C-alpha cells in the first residue's frame, strides 16, 4: 500500500530556468503530463502541467505578426514564470489512501513524491493510482472469479469464510466486506477465488452457512 511501490520513477524534475518550449518538448517526448520544477539545490519549488504549457502559447486566431512576437518571447521565458507554486506532495512511505484523498480533495492530476531531504524521488499520478488499485483488486487476473456472498449477520463472517476455504484448499486472493449503504442495500462480501472449481467454492461456503448470490443492480427509487 506504500506509494514507493507504485510511483513512477525515476523522477524527471526540471530546473526553473528551463524555457517553456524546452519543457513542452520534454513533456511530449516522454508522454508525461506533469513535471516537478526544482531550484539549484534540487528543492521542489513548483509544478508544471501540459495544460499550463499549452495555455502559455498564443492563440491561433491572433495575427501572424503577433504570434511571432509571442513565440519569440516564449523562447526566453523560464518555466518558473508560469509554474504552479502551490503543490501537494507525498512521501515514499505515504499510502495509496493518502494519495487518493489528496488527489481527490485538491483536484490535481499528480503528486510529486519527496524523500526526507525534500528531494523529488518520483511522481504519483491518477493513472498510477488506477493501476495500483487495479492490481490490488485483482482486475483481469487471468484464472480468477469473483463470488458474491450475502453477509448472514452472524459474528466473524470473514474468519468463517477464510477458514472453510482453507480447509477445502480453495485458493483465494481477496476477501472484502462492504457494509450496507442504505435500507435497500445488504452487507455484502466479495471473494476473489483463484480456481475454476466454483462448485467446490459454493459447497464450501454453504457448509459455513453462507448464501452465494447472483449480483443484481438495486435501483434506487426516483
Amino acid at each position, binding site marked *: 500500500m506504500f506509494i514507493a511501490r507504485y510511483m513512477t520513477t525515476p523522477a524527471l524534475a526540471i530546473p526553473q530556468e528551463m524555457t517553456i518550449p524546452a519543457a513542452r518538448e520534454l513533456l511530449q517526448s516522454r508522454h508525461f503530463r506533469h513535471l516537478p520544477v526544482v531550484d539549484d539545490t534540487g528543492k521542489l519549488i513548483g509544478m508544471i502541467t501540459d495544460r499550463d504549457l499549452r495555455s502559455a502559447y498564443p492563440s491561433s486566431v491572433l495575427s501572424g505578426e503577433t504570434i511571432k512576437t509571442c513565440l519569440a518571447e516564449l523562447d526566453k521565458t523560464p518555466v518558473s514564470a508560469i509554474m504552479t507554486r502551490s503543490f501537494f506532495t507525498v512521501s515514499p512511505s505515504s499510502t495509496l489512501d493518502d494519495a487518493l484523498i489528496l488527489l481527490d480533495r485538491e483536484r490535481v492530476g499528480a503528486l510529486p513524491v519527496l524523500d526526507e531531504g525534500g528531494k523529488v524521488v518520483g511522481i504519483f499520478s491518477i493513472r498510477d493510482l488506477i493501476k495500483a488499485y487495479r492490481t490490488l483488486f485483482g482486475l483481469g*487476473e*487471468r484464472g*480468477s472469479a469473483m463470488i*458474491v456472498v450475502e453477509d448472514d449477520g452472524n459474528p466473524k463472517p470473514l474468519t468463517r469464510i477464510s477458514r472453510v476455504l482453507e480447509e477445502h484448499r480453495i485458493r483465494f486472493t481477496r476477501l472484502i466486506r462492504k457494509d450496507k449503504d442504505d435500507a435497500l442495500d445488504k452487507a455484502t462480501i466479495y471473494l476473489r477465488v483463484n480456481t475454476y472449481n466454483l462448485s467446490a467454492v459454493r459447497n464450501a461456503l454453504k457448509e459455513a452457512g453462507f448464501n452465494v448470490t447472483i449480483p443484481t443492480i438495486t435501483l434506487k427509487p426516483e
Partner: protein
Amino acid sequence: MPTLPLTVITDPLCHRHDTGGNGHPEDPARLTVIAGRLGQSPLAPMITTMPPRPAERQWLTTVHSEEYLYRFEETTLAGKSYLDHPDNQLCFESYEAALLSAGAGLAAIDLLEGGATSRAFCCARPPGHHAERNLALGFCFLNNAAVAARYWQQAHGRRKVMIVDWDAHHGNGIQSAFEEDPEVFYLSLHEHPTWSFPGTGWKEETGLGAGKGTTCNIPLPPGSDDAAVMKAIAEQVEPALSRFVPEALVICAGFDGHVADDMSGLSYTTALYRQLGHCAARWAERYCRGKVLTLLEGGYELNSLAASVEMYLTGLATPEP
C-alpha cells in the same frame, strides 16, 4: 420431421481422462450422460458415431509451444495429479485423451470437407477454450477449437474461420491465439468478467494490430436469460458474421450457462440451446456451404447438460419452425 444426418465424434478413451473424483466438475460422467441421452433420443437414427484420431504434433504446434506439449506429456507420465493449477487434474492417460479431444475436430473437418456430413459434433473431453499456448487453465489442456481453426485453414484452404463461443465463460485461450490474426474471428458470449472465471473477455477488447476488429466479446450480466442471448445474437453476432463472411464455422458449445449449472450465474433454459442450434445451422447454410463444426466445451450439471446437448443437436439438424 425431416432431419439432416448428424455425425458425433467420440472415443472411449476420452472417458479415461480421470480428474480425481471428489466432486470435480469436469467428470467422465459428462460424456456418459450425453451418450445415454442421445441413444434414447428421437435423433438417434440420424446419428452416425465416428472415432477421432490423435491430433498430429504439426497441428498442435500451430497453437501450443513444443515446450508446453512436452511438459504436459511429462506431467502425465510422471504420475502427477495436475498441470499448472490443482484445477487441472489429470492422470496417466490424460495426454492421450487430450490428443483425441483435439484430434476429434480434425477428423470432423475431414468428414465435413469430404462431404460425408454437414453437421459434426465433437463429444470429447478434456475441453479446450481456456488453454493457452503455454498454460493449462480451467480444466483445459489443449485448445481444441484453435487447433481445429488452424487445421481448417492450412489443411483445407478455408482461410476465414469464424469461432462462435457461447460457453458461459470467456475462451481466453482462443482469444489470445487469434487476437492479431485478421483471418480468424473469435466471438464470445459469456458472463461478465467482473463476476466470472477466468476474469477475461472485456467488451473493449476487439483484437490487436492486423487483427483489430476480428475479436468480439459480448459480456452478459449475471442472471442473463435466453432473451438476452437472442438479442445479442440479432444485434451483434449476426452483423459480425455478415461483415466477416466466414468460409468455415466453429461453434464452441459449452452448456454451463444453464440455470441449473452452478458454474456460472447465467440463467439459460434448455430451450435456448435449440435456438442456438437453429442459428448455427442458418449461419452454416448462409456462409459455409451448410457445414458447421461444433465442439463440446463446458457444461457440468449432468441433467441439464444431457438435455441441452440433445436440444442443441435437434436445432442443428431440424428446420426452424
